């Protein structure tokens, strides 16, 4: 009896050891690109691509090039401005739409939700081609891309109401009803009762809206097409990697990538609790 128990125990231990080994190797594979990024960003001896990982000479020269010889600072400022405005307006819009669709009952509500669903099935880039022409008419493309891109990111953000609506759906309706009986208007219920309870989803929405413009290449490359000064960081850094630049700018790209990734990653890791809540809550409710 005793030997059997100990063999089970041993088997379990061996199994656990295997799982640890697997998890550690998974995590190291997952982190490898970032380690590589850091090493390349500080490589001083050459600036092209090399087939080894550890730099032979550590230096800050890539960051110096980044700020003195390229428009990186411009791109960074553009992106920060776009991200701040997008975060604010997108949050307001998403919260309004999701609250209205979750809590208020009005004619055409179902129809509206179905229409948004169908509209969402068109590739976003298709409508963006036409939006480009519209923005061009009012001068919001090329050199004026910053306001143009803000409009692009907030314009249709009402269509992304699903996660926030899922959250509002979980707040018990009896709360609103009690307040309504006490004579509060629907607007008051929203501001005074629901919003204070919605802190996690507000933070989630702000965070996602703030981060998205940093990584957008598709829309930004279309709207800013041909005007280097107006690029965001994604489009700008991408130009470092085309055929004629990569031999001189690969490590500079890594330095820029690091400067972009750093604040976003820190922000994300600080708020990851809300992210996990938003993502899992949204999935469970569909």
């Amino acid at each position: 009896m005793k030997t059997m128990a100990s063999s089970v125990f041993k088997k379990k231990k061996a199994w656990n050891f295997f799982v640890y080994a697997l998890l550690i190797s998974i995590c190291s594979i997952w982190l490898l690109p970032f380690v590589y990024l850091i090493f390349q960003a500080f490589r001083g001896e050459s600036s092209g691509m090399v087939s080894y990982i550890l730099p032979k000479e550590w230096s800050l020269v890539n960051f110096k090039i980044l700020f003195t010889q390229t428009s990186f600072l411009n791109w960074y400022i553009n992106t920060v401005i776009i991200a701040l405005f997008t975060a604010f307006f997108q949050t307001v819009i998403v919260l309004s739409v999701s609250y209205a669709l979750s809590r208020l009952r009005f004619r055409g509500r179902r129809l509206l939700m179905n229409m948004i669903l169908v509209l969402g099935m068109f590739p976003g880039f298709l409508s963006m081609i036409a939006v480009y022409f519209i923005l061009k008419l009012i001068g919001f493309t090329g050199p004026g891309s910053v306001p143009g891109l803000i409009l692009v990111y907030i314009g249709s953000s009402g269509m992304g109401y699903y996660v926030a609506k899922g959250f509002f759906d979980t707040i018990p309706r009896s709360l609103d009803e009690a307040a309504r009986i006490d004579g509060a208007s629907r607007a008051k219920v929203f501001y005074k009762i629901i919003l204070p309870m919605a802190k996690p989803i507000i933070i989630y929405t702000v965070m996602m809206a703030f981060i998205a413009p940093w990584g957008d290449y598709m829309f930004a490359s279309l709207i800013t097409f041909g005007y280097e000064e107006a690029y965001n960081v994604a489009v700008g850094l991408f130009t470092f990697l085309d055929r004629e630049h990569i031999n001189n700018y690969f490590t500079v790209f890594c330095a820029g990538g690091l400067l972009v990734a750093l604040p976003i990653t820190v922000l994300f890791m600080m708020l990851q609790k809300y992210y996990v809540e938003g993502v899992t809550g949204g999935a469970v409710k569909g």
Partner: protein
Amino acid sequence: MLNRDSLDFYKLNGLQKVFYKFLWFITAVPKTALNILKKAFYSVRDFVFKTFSVIRNIVRIFRDGDIYTRISYFIMGFGQFFRKQPLRGILFLAFQLVFILYMLLFGISYLGKLDDLGEVAAVTVINEYGLEVIEYKDNSLQILLYGVLTLFFCLGFIYTWYVNVKQNGVAQTLINKGKLPKNAAEDVRSLADEQYHKTLLALPLAGILIFTVIPLVFMVLVAFTNYDYTHLPPSKLFTWVGLDNFKSLLGVQVADGKFAFTFGEILIWTLIWAFFATFTNYFLGILVAMLINKKGIKFKKVFRTLLIFTIAVPQFVSLLLISKMLANDGAVNGILLQIGVIKENIKWLTDPILARITVILVNIWLGIPYTMLIATGILINIPADLYESARIDGASGIKRFTKITMPYMLFVTGPYLLTTFVGNINNFNVIYLLTGGAPKTTDFTGGAGYTDLLITWLYKLTLTDNDYKMAAVIGIMTFVVVAGISLVVYNLSSSVKNEESFQ
């Protein structure tokens, strides 16, 4: 054929059960298609009925209307103004004046040119200094764009006009009953209460209209024109060509064979990609989540946080970096060569077949943390006593996984899987930043390569080829694919869910 809940079904072995499930799925498809058609028919019928009832309503209100109501049919807001709703009256009248002014100044001329999108693009004239200069006349792009905007303005006007008529009808009945219609203060108050949805939705819906609906209508119309690099305004015109673009997509003429071939190949690859990208991530993500959640494993939080790290770093940084690491002379090949695992460089991203496998592998790297998070959230919610009783009944670990974990996961994440699948069909970032569609081939047209998806091809057609007409067609086809899959899955999922209750 066996019935789903007949006892005989439970006597079959596993393979036969799978066979029957597959058979049911196939037989359910025509029924589903029929249902969809039926639903479409009913909604069209409802729409027609509704239009008739609106027209009847308009006629009825006019017939029963007093003088104020009748004048409101021509001067909007007239009735409201004299029924103590001056604010509404002024707003309606102002809207009508703006509309008439717009139509006279721009609208009518644009609508008039909409039939052929302009006749003269540019003429060369001699200016006052005796020099030849080009004077641009009709710009097809602007005509189409303003034409669409004007059409939407007209629709908006017709709707507002109907609202105006209806309000007159309501106000008149109220007054006849001896009540007063709402005054301005009550109007404002109701916008914070009964009509609060209007306050909340006005701006967001205006945004969706301007940035999605109108552009989509415009692009759908472009699919029926010959707008491409040989017809670029302002120096050239483009015009309506009917279904020609769709014909060349399907390769009706031999000359279009290459385009049709490219489309077919890219469509198939897009579907293969979406399938593998979705399901590899899904199952591997669940697996990783289960490994981390396993009893007796410590540092759960550390493992989870390390994986979440990949979500935190902006995708364009990590994807561009990985694409360079996997280049022929990149770091991965360099290290593998150094430690002697390989003799020559592996063509991760330049060999047609291997490139397709590589993008799926990199997508696994990118996607597992997301699925891991979602799966963790659900796994924690599975009642522990289910596993306990299964263990007591002697179910093995694999059995517990296939009979408890997976059905539960699938049940909860069904909608998520569909969204992910659709998201992957339109996954621009992973493909464009990783390979840019490469390796390219001369077999394909429009600069497409072996890893291009419909969405990246659409992007290339627009930005590098200026082939807007075909870009519009590809966009519409993407919609058709996505909508078709969604409809079928959505309609079948109810039967899938019924099946779930038997397990």
